């Protein structure tokens, strides 16, 4: 029984990473209606910027804020320069664009900062949290930040004019344009916000997985899985999905015989697909009813 609770706690701790990433994924999905495959690399690049600032002697929180602003600007610029001209291209062309972006960012980061593993500081410290050996204060801090972020996003989307306009632009672009919303800039804003949230995720994850250009590969896969499991239309679902995936993964690794680290990912994914087959919109996703 103690093993079970311990594994669940450990699962929640890793789940916080996935939840953070899933939140960024859902953000951009709400703004542009696509999954951005380059999201993880964008987050990785932001984290490297933060690291570089700190190397230059900037204190943690200033570097944090500067990275947030730079990532936001970067996201907007990428949208304006790369994806606005492709607005009318087929969806699959967009996906190819994401893959191109992935390759470029990964390669540039590798050349600039090379592929050696770097330490990334944590603002929360890494002592055991409340006497538990399984969750450190950093992981607890990460869970806290994710929840605060979720709350802020909820207020932004529900109670501000811009949030409402963004939701309108994503769900019904034509009608939104008719009531005077600048839908094109709403998409750019969505990119900026997703990049900023991604950078927070990156900076929180980096102390755990260490900083290097390929650090996001595995995390992004789990982030996608978590977002899809929770339902791509629901930020709340994304966070719950993230924690669930973390717990699943740990329990599968412990209780199913013959499952080493290698098979954890396929088993987690298989479980998610089973959930999807029963509930095709994810756990908290809204079913979009199509008019025939």
């Amino acid at each position: 029984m103690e093993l079970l609770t311990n594994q669940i706690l450990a699962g929640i701790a890793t789940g916080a990473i996935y939840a953070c990433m899933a939140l960024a994924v859902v953000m951009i999905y709400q703004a542009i209606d696509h999954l951005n495959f380059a999201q993880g690399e964008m987050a990785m690049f932001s984290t490297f910027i933060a690291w570089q600032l700190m190397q230059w002697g900037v204190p943690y929180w200033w570097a944090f804020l500067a990275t947030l602003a730079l990532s936001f600007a970067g996201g907007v610029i990428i949208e304006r320069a790369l994806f606005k001209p492709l607005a009318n291209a087929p969806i699959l062309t967009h996906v190819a664009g994401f893959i191109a972006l992935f390759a470029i960012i990964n390669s540039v980061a590798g050349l600039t900062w090379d592929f050696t593993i770097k330490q990334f500081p944590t603002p929360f410290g890494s002592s055991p949290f409340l006497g538990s050996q399984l969750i450190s204060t950093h992981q607890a801090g990460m869970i806290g930040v994710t929840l605060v972020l979720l709350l802020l996003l909820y207020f932004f989307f529900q109670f501000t004019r811009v949030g409402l306009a963004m939701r309108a632009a994503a769900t019904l672009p034509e009608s939104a344009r008719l009531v005077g919303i600048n839908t094109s800039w709403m998409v750019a804003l969505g990119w900026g916000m997703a990049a900023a949230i991604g950078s927070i995720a990156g900076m929180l994850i980096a102390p755990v997985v260490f900083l290097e250009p390929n650090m996001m590969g595995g995390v992004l896969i789990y982030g996608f899985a978590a977002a899809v499991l929770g339902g791509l239309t629901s930020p709340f679902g994304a966070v719950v999905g993230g924690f669930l995936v973390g717990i699943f993964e740990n329990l599968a690794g412990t209780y199913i015989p013959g499952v080493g680290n290698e098979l954890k990912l396929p088993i987690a994914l298989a479980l998610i697909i089973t959930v999807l087959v029963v509930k095709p919109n994810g756990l908290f996703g809204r079913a979009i009813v199509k008019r025939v």
Partner: protein
Amino acid sequence: MSALQEIVDVTPVEATPKKYIALGGYASVAVLVLLIAAPLFAKNFIIFQMTMWLIYAIAVLALNILTGGSGQFSLGQSAFYAVGAYTSAILMEHFNVNYALTLPIAGVICFAFGYVFGQPALRLSGVYLALATFALATAMPQLLKLGYFEHWTGGVQGLVVTKPDAPFGLPMSQDMWLYYFTLVISIMIYVFSVNLLKSRSGRAMMAIRDNEIAASAMGVDVALYKTLAFGISAGITGVAGGLGAIAVQFVAPDSYTIQLAIALFLGMVVGGVGWLPGSLAGSAFIVFVPNIAESVSKGLSGAVFGAILIVIIFVLPHGARQIAYLSQHWINKLIHK
């Protein structure tokens, strides 16, 4: 209401060609002559690369049938490719089956695998289907490494396959023989695919792609044709995988990762979704452009590759198909002047 709720998130694959899926008569003959003549003037290594080009073209074509034909998206093609490759390799090395005979067996096994996988995939569409197929692609290398199958698959080490000689004492190198062998199979698969898409079944698949509800209202068995498309696509990919194993002479789990699936996907987009001859152009992109990028800059090869890809999708959002249409348009203009 519940029936309506079932229909969720159907992302239509846009801008797929409605009428032209193949090249015209003259163009086909010209391409064929080029493909037959080219190896006569090339070195063995170039011929090997051209063989890989044809093999990937078959795999891209298979994805094109699935996505361009029936409107389903798959990131799991590398799994089918791996199953095909391992089937051929195991049959050749453990059972001494002739290499040519292993290909149809690989095709049949992959067809069955794809058809079965298509069953649960029926309920998913769009990104959800992408995730499911993606899961398949990430799981496959791990499954191939499992200890239970190590006796057959060789585990992490993989299997070495002997390269076939040219039969009947034909005076050509192994590489050249393999190229022509692959070419013949490619042509067979291409003709089969064009005829498939032009047939009743092909029209049913395209009707599902354009509007699933309308198609089912017209009496198309949506479930049957969607799973059939998955099966056929997997079967063809399996044949490509088998050919790949024979050409590379080696199969190992890590050759068939998600990167292969992504490459095949890029090949389809660059070639033009739903336009079968585009598979050749798309496959040329995935075989040769990484080499070009590498030669431009070693450290930044990924960035160069990405930049080339972005230029291509900016200039030709509909892939190589766009070039074909434009040139056809100009030729018609010239003739009718």
